[in-house]
């Protein structure tokens, strides 16, 4: 096949431009990529039809991108870290799930969807984009805030939730309303695959360490990418969803001594292909198709923001975080991205109702754009809220700050003692 590099180059230039604008505006690049992709041909405003092959290449980049995104997410885990923070994380995660699963379930039931569609809608509405959230926190210089720990803990919980939720949803979606026993078989097969994979890799942990003891970065990287793509392929054949395969491979390799080296090598690839993922999502949207879902998507957006704020308020109480922090939590976790797109694509390929497809695209688009905006404006929103509701912050810690206790100073004199 002949490739039109001029067209591919033009697409990449637009992606790079998104990056420039994003860093100039101190804003997440993800919504820009989706929005610019939406405006560009084949579906957008400009009357130009790019060649099939150029579009194919961008979509291929995007499909690789989602693998890299989830693989690196898996690599960030470690079982030790998980166990350390398990108690607080599970508590906060369960609170989040109860609030938001309930709200989105009611919403989906109200629209009269079938089981598979309801499951996809819940997944799309419940799972935040850890990529956007982490990036937003860094960009807004909120990494040191107290509530940031709560937010990142929740992202971790959601990532684990996704690893278990995706196989269930894809089994249900592809069963085409088959008998419940068939369904049980495919869900069982998915979990068997995951369990077997994790078990084998835990057993071969030492061996894996040895195998990947490759001096050359080039060979090492090739081996990693080869395994990543192959595992994704195997997972796809077993209808487990490539993304799950990539995530679980990441989890497994996180336990080897090589995880830092892998992370260091794949980050540039994740950034490039990940950008292509969001961009190609934008390109695939046909704006005129979405008109039927505007009401549902707007309602769902409002529900998500409300649910997130409720969660923020509850966490503010239990984790003793200021009201300002609680508002920050609520507004930061509204961003939707990679997971919701994966689930939306899954719904589309499984041939579920077209309303669900337009709904999910519009909803993800709205919250990929609104999420970072709301996070950025959360201080102002808090001030407005505080003004309107007449909140007063109890300033407990601030008072004692900066006062030197002479007794303490005396006791600590002499560095050698």
């Amino acid at each position: 096949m002949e490739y039109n590099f001029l067209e591919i180059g033009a697409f990449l230039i637009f992606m790079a431009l998104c990056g420039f604008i994003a860093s100039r505006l101190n804003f997440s690049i993800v919504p820009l990529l989706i929005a610019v992709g939406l405006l560009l041909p084949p579906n957008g405003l400009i009357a130009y039809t790019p060649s099939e092959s150029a579009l194919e290449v961008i979509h291929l980049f995007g499909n690789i991108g989602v693998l890299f995104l989830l693989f690196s997410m898996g690599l960030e885990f470690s079982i030790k870290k998980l166990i350390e923070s398990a108690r607080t994380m599970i508590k906060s995660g369960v609170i989040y799930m109860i609030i938001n699963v309930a709200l989105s379930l009611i919403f989906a039931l109200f629209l009269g969807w079938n089981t598979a569609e309801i499951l996809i809608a819940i997944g799309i509405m419940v799972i935040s984009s850890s990529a956007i959230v982490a990036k937003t926190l860094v960009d807004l210089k909120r990494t040191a805030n107290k509530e940031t720990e709560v937010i990142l803990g929740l992202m971790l919980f959601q990532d684990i939730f996704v690893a278990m939720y995706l196989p269930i949803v894809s089994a249900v979606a592809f069963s085409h309303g088959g008998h419940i026993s068939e369904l049980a078989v495919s869900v069982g097969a998915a979990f068997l695959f995951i369990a077997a994979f994790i078990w084998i890799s835990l057993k071969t942990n030492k061996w894996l360490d040895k195998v990947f003891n490759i001096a050359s970065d080039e060979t090492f990287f090739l081996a990693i990418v080869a395994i990543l793509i192959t595992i994704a392929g195997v997972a796809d054949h077993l209808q487990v969803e490539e993304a799950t395969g990539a995530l679980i491979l990441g989890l497994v390799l996180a336990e080897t001594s090589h995880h830092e080296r892998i992370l260091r090598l794949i980050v540039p690839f994740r950034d490039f292909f990940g950008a292509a993922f969001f961009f190609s999502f934008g390109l695939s949207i046909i704006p005129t198709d979405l008109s039927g879902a505007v009401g549902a998507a707007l309602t769902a957006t409002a529900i998500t923001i409300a649910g997130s704020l409720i969660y923020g308020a509850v966490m503010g109480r239990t984790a003793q975080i200021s009201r300002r922090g609680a508002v920050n939590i609520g507004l930061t976790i509204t961003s939707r991205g990679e997971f919701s797109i994966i689930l939306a694509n899954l719904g589309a390929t499984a041939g579920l109702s077209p309303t669900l497809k337009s709904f999910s695209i519009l909803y993800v688009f709205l919250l990929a754009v609104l999420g970072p905006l709301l996070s950025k404006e959360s201080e102002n929103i808090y001030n407005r809220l505080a003004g309107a509701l007449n909140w007063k912050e109890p300033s407990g810690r601030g008072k004692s700050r900066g006062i030197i206790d002479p007794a303490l100073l005396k006791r600590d004199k002499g560095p050698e003692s």
Partner: protein
Amino acid sequence: MKNLVKETDLPGIGKKFAVTPITGGEIILIVHDNGLREIYRYDADDNAKHIITLNDSEARKIAGILGGMAYTPKALENMELSLSDLTIEWHKPEPNAPIYGKTIGDLGVRKNTGVNIIAIIGQDGRSTVNPGPDSSMNPGDTIVLAGTREQIKAFKTFVSAPPTP
């Protein structure tokens, strides 16, 4: 010095270190996985305010300065740095120590104590690195010594009372 530094994981971002000095206040250091460092401090309303972002090499340079490797604070003229058996120590002998005016060779520093004098830092801040046996010390000089802990201890007693050759 208990609980001076509290360490927390920030999954997907890096690590957070909260440092609470005894003089009050709290400094937050964020070490990003991509090598950037950020310093924050809490304001009166308990909000973390960003102070500065540093890249890896800048952060290391500043760490060296804070650690006293570039310039020793006046209050700590007797500073030491231990690397397993080797100790490097900055020592300022008493101004009336009976070693001034004589050369290092005459004093027989290495023969008598075992330490190596690796530098002499004069009061004007000018330093003689790796002084030869004919170099001498002046009152107020800071002497940089290398040796084992025992050898350095021997040097300290030696400079207060050197045996006549």
